[in-house]
């Protein structure tokens, strides 16, 4: 299965990963090889087989809805690239 330039751009947007112009061709070639591997699956009849998302089909464990963690924002934000007034700073989004 061959992945073209427009599909690389589409996937780049989905994955939120910039792909430079000079990388499109090698990225496309390697993605196409991986997708070829997936094509092997299409020949198998899986009709009636229930999809399996997890090794143990157990119900999600729930806990009591109570606060169990102390406020650690200073510690957790100490590894952030940019913060101010307990908030994370990002480029302006709204004009």
């Amino acid at each position, binding site marked *: 299965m061959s992945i073209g330039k427009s599909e690389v751009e589409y996937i780049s947007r989905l994955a939120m990963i910039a792909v430079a112009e000079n990388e499109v061709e090698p990225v496309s070639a390697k993605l196409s090889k991986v997708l070829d591997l997936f094509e092997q699956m299409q020949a*198998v009849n899986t009709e009636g*087989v229930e999809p399996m998302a997890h090794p143990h089909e157990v119900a999600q464990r729930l806990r009591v809805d109570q606060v169990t963690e102390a406020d650690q924002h200073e510690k957790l934000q100490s590894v952030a690239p940019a913060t101010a007034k307990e908030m994370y700073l990002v480029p302006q989004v709204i004009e």
Partner: protein
Amino acid sequence: MLHTLSVKQMSEKLHAGEITSVELTQHYLDRIAEFDPELNAYVTVTPELALEMAKEADVRLKNGAAGQLTGIPIAHKDIFCTDGVKTSCSSKMLDNFIAPYDAHVVTLLKKAGMPILGKTNMDEFAMGSSSESSYYGPTKNPWDLNAVPGGSSGGAAAVIAANLAPLATGTDTGGSIRQPASFCGITGIKPTYGTVSRFGIIAYASSFDQAGPMTRSAEESAWLLNAMSEFDERDSTCLEMSRPDFSANLNDSLAGLKVGVPAEYFGEGLDADVEQVVKAAIAEIEKLGATVLPVSLPNKDLAVPAYYVLAPAEASSNLSRYDGVRFGYRCAQPQDLEDLYKRSRAEGFGAEVKRRIMVGAYALSAGYYDAYYLKAQRLRRMVRDDFTQAFEQCDVIMGPVAPTPAFNLGEKTDDPTSMYLADLYTIPVNLGGFPAMSVPAGFAQGRPVGLHIVGPYFSEAKLLNIGHQFQQVTNWHQQMPEQYR
């Protein structure tokens, strides 16, 4: 020479007061300083932390408050968050990340009194089969510096093989404990999915990732697994059940054990020398009283494509948190929010990680979800059911861990699909979540080869028993590369 002792011998000497944990820890730190520049198996060495913890262990040993592993140093794969220590997952994305908390496994092993020597090199975000995709450069195989140590826990396997740590932690998503264990001639076990808490282990593919011990012997793996497995409510995938004493059955006889050998494991693509080593190991187990019978795993070859849809799909979700906002790498002078996300991720991730995120996003996208993702989930069940049916006839399944011995550095880096096939025998086990281990079984082309032992859910104690009994009649696990003896 302290590093040639078994962990049991070290423990006895520590408890008898013949050596101190500080002496033992310093011995390993000296060896790391001498040998690691060549191997590149550690990405971070923590001498001050190690010696401080060793002093505390010595106090416990003196006070009679020590356990089996108190005072024994350990190396953690750099995927385990370690409070106050850089935890990079061998990625530029986390090169500046000092973990603000401990993974549950790290907490448990700290409680056991095990000094932390440092963090071991790995494939970036545990994606790879050779430890070559690390931001910090590849680790080399102590048995042959031209060979890869396997991946993604290649650094952990190399430090055990080269005696740069007596014990190490690893994680296994598609074979990342067993394949490097096989390539480096050490023992490694991936427990049943859900046995060890995943809290604080940087996530790759959540329904596959499982931590386990990497050691020289099965007995040592049993000891370490005892210390690192416990129910943890902070991990919703951790099984809420009591854990057995994994070392309780080590000395059981193998008489009457039924060993299933799948014909599909010995077909085209398997290196002839590896086949010979694995068959000789199975014959040795037979001599110990086991019965060998044929079983079938007809969907084995579908496991690789199914895994490479499902694991990247989960990875594309898990790795969406690396966006340059709250922690990790941020690109310079982002123009807007989308530019911040896209350039931070493009510059912070390596090629293989980007490829898997893109493949995963594509597999989950509208139009391909049914054809790829749902199809792969159906195949996952078929692969799991193959094992379940085989285990109705036999107690365990044995075969090769990898189709070849360790390959050369750079040999497969340009061909991702060829690299993926290095995990051909290990991946099916992760699809089902079964426990499995690699036990050193011999050499092919001068490089180590492991025997793969797979069991039904919660059969870790049986696997370790088999490994231990095999190691009572063989000495493959005691062999060490000449320059690291």
